[in-house]
């Protein structure tokens, strides 16, 4: 594990932050005791205070509780999205890089076409096709990320293939399969992992965007994007309803971003 997670204050803080969100996903009741869906009507729109740290919403639900339970909505879905993107992208990009020039040109053309459609528009097109809902939204975001992954993985594998040590391995009698298994995969793994972590932070934001636009989970799910959308109607009176879910998104996305930064940085240090 030490080879992938470099030590240093930046990654320690990032991992710490992500661990708190992980706790919220697995055991939300350890962080809060209220109910995320049903509120206390007479306690609606309370400003942040000792009983409700982040205030309450229009139905008297505790905002902090909803944020804690909201981690469960967005973060695993974003993981699904990124996994979809990485697996499809690695397959297409790897295939393009390792195939004959004709296949490479054809696949690269398809990648170029998909890249030309802005990611959010592509995700929306897929959402129209599959219908609304959290899983559909995750797959849509994953598909919209595929082309980006495929492009980068193709270029990475092609540059690895041109390394002298790959040719040296072939001259040592290593076959095509051995070259991929022993040389290309281990060398591609770390850069791709760093990229996937970065893309994960983007998937979180994209998913919350779909939620905000109303194409993800339906109310009263405590999804962060949806919470911000609901809070928009109380912008002038209840700033906490939009501010805190946004801060939660910002925190987790920034922590992931920094982690990816730390991971790709140490890679560059080696000769």
């Amino acid at each position, binding site marked *: 594990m030490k080879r992938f997670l470099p030590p240093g204050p930046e990654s320690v803080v990032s991992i710490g932050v992500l661990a708190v969100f992980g706790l919220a996903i697995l055991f939300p009741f350890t962080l809060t005791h209220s109910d995320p869906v049903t509120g206390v009507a007479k306690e609606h729109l309370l400003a942040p205070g000792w009983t409700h740290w982040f205030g309450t919403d229009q139905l008297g639900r505790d905002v902090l509780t909803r944020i804690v339970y909201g981690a469960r909505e967005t973060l695993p879905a974003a993981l699904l999205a990124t996994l979809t993107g990485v697996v499809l992208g690695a397959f297409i990009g790897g295939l393009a890089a390792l195939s004959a020039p004709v296949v490479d040109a054809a696949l690269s053309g398809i990648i170029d076409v998909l890249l030309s459609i802005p990611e959010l528009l592509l995700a929306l097109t897929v959402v129209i096709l599959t219908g609304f809902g959290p899983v559909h939204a995750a797959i849509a975001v994953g598909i919209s990320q595929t082309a980006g992954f495929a492009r980068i993985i193709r270029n990475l594998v092609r540059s690895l293939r041109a390394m002298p040590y790959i040719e040296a391995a072939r001259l040592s009698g290593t076959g095509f399969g051995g070259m991929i298994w022993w040389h290309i995969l281990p*060398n591609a793994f770390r850069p791709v992992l760093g990229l996937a972590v970065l893309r994960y932070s983007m998937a979180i934001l994209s998913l919350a965007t779909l939620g905000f636009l109303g194409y993800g989970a339906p109310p009263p799910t405590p999804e962060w994007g949806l919470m911000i959308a609901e809070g928009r109607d109380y912008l002038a009176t209840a700033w906490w309803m939009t501010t805190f879910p946004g801060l939660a998104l910002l925190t987790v996305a920034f922590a992931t971003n920094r982690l990816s930064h730390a991971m790709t940085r140490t890679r560059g240090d080696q000769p």
Partner: protein
Amino acid sequence: MNTQRPVLDVSHLGISYDGKPAVENISFQTFPGQTMALIGESGSGKSTIAKAIIQLLPPSACVTHGIITLNGISLPDATPRALNAIRGHQIGFIPQDPSSSLDPRLPVGRQIEEVLRLHTSQRRAERRAHVLHLLEHVGFSEPERRFLQYPHELSGGMKQRVLIAIAVALAPPLIIADEPTSALDVTIQGQILDLLDRLREESGSSVLMITHDLAVARDRAHDMIVLRHGQIAEQNTTRNLFENPRSSYTRKLLADSPAFHSRPATPERPVSGTQPAIQVKDLTIAYGSRTAVSHLSFDVQPGTTHGIIGESGSGKTTLLRCLMGLIPPQSGSVHVQGKDIFSETSAERRQRLRSMQLVYQNPWSSLDPRLTIRRIIEEPLRNYFPEGQAWRQARLHDLLERVHLPLALLERYPSEISGGQCQRVALARALAAQPDILVLDEFVSALDVTVQARILELLSELQKELNLTFVFVSHDLAVVRQIADTLSIIRYGKQEEYGDAEQIFREPASPYTQTLLRAIPGQQHSGKAKREGSKEW
């Protein structure tokens, strides 16, 4: 003792990187019109000293003690603004690698002009005239045309001339030349150093030359400092250093430098009569639309070393890849052990690739950074031999012993071992396939002389023990001379000369070979000291 005032006075200089001392207790002075050479292998601290003088050390470096004065001005105490006024005006700097030392985005004339713009109040037209004059001065025949050309339109030697023009533009009292010719072909090298000598004599500047090449220093420097691990191993006049070296390290360096020896006498090898290990006949290779190699022919006898010499762009790398069967020829043939390699079955090809191993130039990039040394050497063992784990283990130990590497290295990664050790690992991997022929591409070019000498020794040892045939490709005549029995000299893809190595070195037939041999540095014996009369210490 010199009676003149020193230009540069360095005393008790110490520099550390991240708290670790890199350079300690360095003291020397340079004088007008004189060349001082700082000599050392990689990691000796010679470039660090140069950067400290011009006050451009990286942030992690720190001058811990000592004084650096230029004409009486203390450089470490100068303000940033004062330093900018000194750099380029009082100190000219000629960088190491001309191909990457010019801004790729600007015409070269503008880049020379920049130093005038920074330090003089000349107007635009005056500056332009000055630049044209400088271009002519450093040997360009059409200065107006050169003024507008971009770096990528010039050859390496021409770029170095431009960089020299920048350095001497304002006739600075001190010129620092950091490995000014190590990236250039040997025939260009001499021209550039001649130019630098001429300019120094004309302007009376003091030159501080940083180099790893004893031969170059011998030709050009009045005084020399030999550095080792950041400390002065020997400080002497050039003549004394070569005729009567005081330190054991200098003696070792002199012994290991290929330029100062001819080939060690070897017993006669089996030559004619047997079937050649490699036979190349009338080989022509096209690379894209242009011909990279044309009508090349040579034979390599088993158990001998064939040297292939060429400067950059001579087509030697293309030739070598064709020899391995990696690219097809346009016409002609390559026979290995009597078989045509371009009409073999895939089983024959596999067998040939086992018996004919290629070893690469760059120590690090030819070893997979994600594999341990054990896995790297085991790769051919697993691929070519069906025997089990115990046999592999025994072979592994045997191979490491052959290339003189400790067993402890097995679990390390390539990034954790030195360049010389990497090349030994690469050799062990090649030998693991039990080859008859090794093709070595610039195999020792990236290594320091002392390491180079050990690897060359290892090669001859292996050749004797295993009766290997070598094809040794290099740009460095002095190195090839050490090892080759027969020789091909190629230029622009054409064979200039082919035959017995000693014969060619003794009586070169082609004019190009003669030029090449004359250009080998280190032949102007005691160089400057003899020609101009040495200043005694």
